[in-house]
């Protein structure tokens, strides 16, 4: 065995001296000439644009795997009917990470090094995004509009190539805090939250926004995504006799909590459900008669909401989804989310001064009140040198009959609470 070990070491040393046998990863990229000289043009030509996204298509979080279907439908539609984005046909590659960070790293490397994408357009989930953003920033690849509302993406300064899109969970928490301050200044709040980055971020933001007010949190209960049911948590919360219930959950648990609240006739708090679980598809299984008066907030148009029935963008979405993604049900809100984020990318790419990676990076960080038709009227995208959050406005809504009814003005959390800092 000793002989083999020595032999192997020799081979190892030999191999090491042969280093440099492969091309360096960065060396194969292309750069622009002319005005944008020296900037990276990997994955983009005058006719084409290659993007890559990483989503959980398998495993426990596969529900979110619907988002890329909406994105693909949008790009297919733009490619076929509008000659792509600025004459460039978009190719959108989707890879599965099963919501596993090591898988996300692997897929990010595959997209960047093997597929040579222009940008990572969405990685889904805080863990997967955190695991990949160091890599994206080292390689200087834009990682734009990541599908997670953690506030880190906007407050961090060491990762200029990564940016979020949806309102971050802290901003959403601020909207509810604002609502309570005005409507129920002495509210006692019970909170149910998912014990992960999403739940903790929203609850933390809510607590910070309540500082200095008379609104108090009197009970908190968490659940794990692996729990079968949140019923035990709900009965614990009911004992607190709080007069407001903040429901910070993902869809299935949202339905369970709404049902538990409806069943318990001796506890009737004002029920606030967070945006993630506010889709009509979550409320319907509980029974519309049981969810009257529930409060939530939103920023994009729900395809199940009759309010938007004759909205031109919604009609276009419904028609094009049927045409370009015939297998996908347009009523799934994740599809609409995908549509909205893809059209946001369309706008950001068009606004880029240079058709380069640097151009996209700078463009998404200099959005000035950009309108996206799938977003609510009055909700726009704005970013700046010290503002890394594209969407920070939301509007409150309450459930009446069979649909959400928007009320009040669009709340711009930047104006109400000042910019968000780490």
């Amino acid at each position, binding site marked *: 065995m000793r002989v083999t070990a020595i032999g192997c070491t020799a081979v190892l040393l030999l191999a090491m001296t042969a280093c440099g046998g492969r091309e360096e*990863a960065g060396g194969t990229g292309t750069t622009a000439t002319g005005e944008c000289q020296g900037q990276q043009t990997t994955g983009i030509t005058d006719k084409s644009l290659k993007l890559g996204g990483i989503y959980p298509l398998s*495993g426990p979080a596969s529900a979110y795997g619907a988002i890329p279907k909406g994105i693909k439908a949008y790009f297919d539609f733009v490619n076929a009917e509008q000659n792509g984005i600025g004459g460039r046909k978009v190719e959108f590659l989707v890879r*599965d990470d099963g919501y596993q960070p090591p898988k996300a790293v692997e897929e990010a490397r595959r997209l960047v090094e*093997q597929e040579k994408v222009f940008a990572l357009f969405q990685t889904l989930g805080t863990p997967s995004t955190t695991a990949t953003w160091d890599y994206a920033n080292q390689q200087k690849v834009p990682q734009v509009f990541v599908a997670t509302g953690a506030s880190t993406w906007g407050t961090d300064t060491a990762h200029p190539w990564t940016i979020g899109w949806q309102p971050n969970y802290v901003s959403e928490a601020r909207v509810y805090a604002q609502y309570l301050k005005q409507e129920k200044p002495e509210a006692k709040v019970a909170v149910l939250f998912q014990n*992960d980055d999403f739940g903790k971020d929203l609850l933390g933001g809510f607590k910070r926004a309540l500082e200095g007010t008379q609104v108090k949190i009197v009970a908190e209960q968490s659940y794990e995504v*692996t729990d079968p049911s949140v019923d035990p948590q709900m009965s614990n919360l009911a004992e607190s006799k709080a007069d407001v219930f903040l429901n910070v959950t993902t869809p299935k648990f949202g339905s369970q909590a709404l049902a538990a609240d409806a069943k318990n006739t001796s506890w009737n708090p004002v029920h606030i459900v967070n945006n993630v679980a506010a889709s009509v598809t979550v409320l319907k299984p509980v029974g519309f008669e049981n969810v009257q008066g529930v409060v939530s907030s939103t920023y994009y148009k729900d395809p199940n909401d009759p309010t938007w029935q004759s909205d031109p963008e919604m009609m276009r979405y419904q028609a094009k989804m049927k045409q370009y993604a015939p297998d996908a049900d347009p009523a799934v809100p994740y599809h609409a989310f995908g549509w909205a984020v893809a059209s946001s990318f369309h706008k950001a790419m068009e606004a880029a001064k240079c058709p380069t990676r640097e151009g996209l990076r700078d463009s998404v960080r200099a959005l000035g009140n950009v309108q996206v038709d799938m977003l609510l009227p009055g909700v726009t995208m704005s970013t700046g040198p010290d503002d890394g959050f594209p969407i920070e406005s939301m509007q409150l809504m309450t459930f009446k009959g069979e649909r959400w009814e928007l009320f009040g003005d669009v709340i711009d959390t930047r104006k109400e609470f000042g910019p968000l800092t780490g």
Partner: protein
Amino acid sequence: MSDTAEVTRVDAPTRAGALRRVAAERWRWIVLAALFAAACYAPFQLVPFRVFQFTMVLVYAVALLGLNLLVGHAGQISLGHGAFFAVGAYGAAIMLDRFELPYPVTLPIAAAVAFVIGLALGLPAMRLRGLYLALVTLAMAIFLVPLLKRFEEVTGGSMGLTLPKPAPPAWTGLAEDQWLYFLALAVAVAAFLSAYSLMRSRVGRALHAIRDNEAAAETMGVRLSFYKTLAFAWSAMFAGAAGCVYTWVIGFVSPDSFAVTLSITLLAGLVVGGLGSLSGPLLGGLFVMFVPSISQDVNEAAPGVIFGLLIIAVMYVAPTGLAGLTGRAAHSIRKTLRKE
């Protein structure tokens, strides 16, 4: 478990003549040396993304090697090895993050911590058998996730910890991915050698005796609980070492990365790779790494459909795992060669 004994018999000295044995041994070392040479040469030829993939194969292989000690050699089923993997990964992460220890130091400590925890849990757990042990270890793996979230000051809670990756020393002239690959390769080689010598020692023989017939082994004076607990602790140690290298390579740990799926994937990977053989863990690592992406290429809408089918298919074709299959193939090749 009697069928798996056949696979290991290839490792053990056979009844065949000494001459043929020497020849077989020599063949094996030549193959291993060639494999090792290829493993050393590969990172200079492959793109960084492929190098990363093989680094992860090595990480999984080390974990599976540990699991193999327990399942393949001692005949005890664990569905909680993701937990020991997590202990190693978090151990390394906490040492790097809170105490800012140099990274080479984290490996022995992480492995030792996993060993001690394995020993502590092994004492009660090893009184259980088969199915019950599997379920208790499964419950441990599930419990670990909320536990990691609870001690937020140390573990970073549900946000996890982000860590710097080990930088290649300047004298090597290696890129980061190559350096990480060689670190993983070094750990894997050390792990394979120690597992190999462990199995050839008195302990290995005692474990085989327990697996094949517990009662007989006990009658012959093998201290059952002692060896079983030891096997559990060792397998935890290997998993811990693998977890430590995982932290170096990924540079990020979070509780949900070590959910119960990891434990089940590890066990499935081992059985698919082949129980009780030395090549099983490596083949299992390749399966765990590459088959999910292949599944996605086949069916993008629902990769799980293909992945599930592939697991079932491998078990049909090779009930003793891929190692058994390659073993059979090698055997028949040798036989044809000898005939000529």
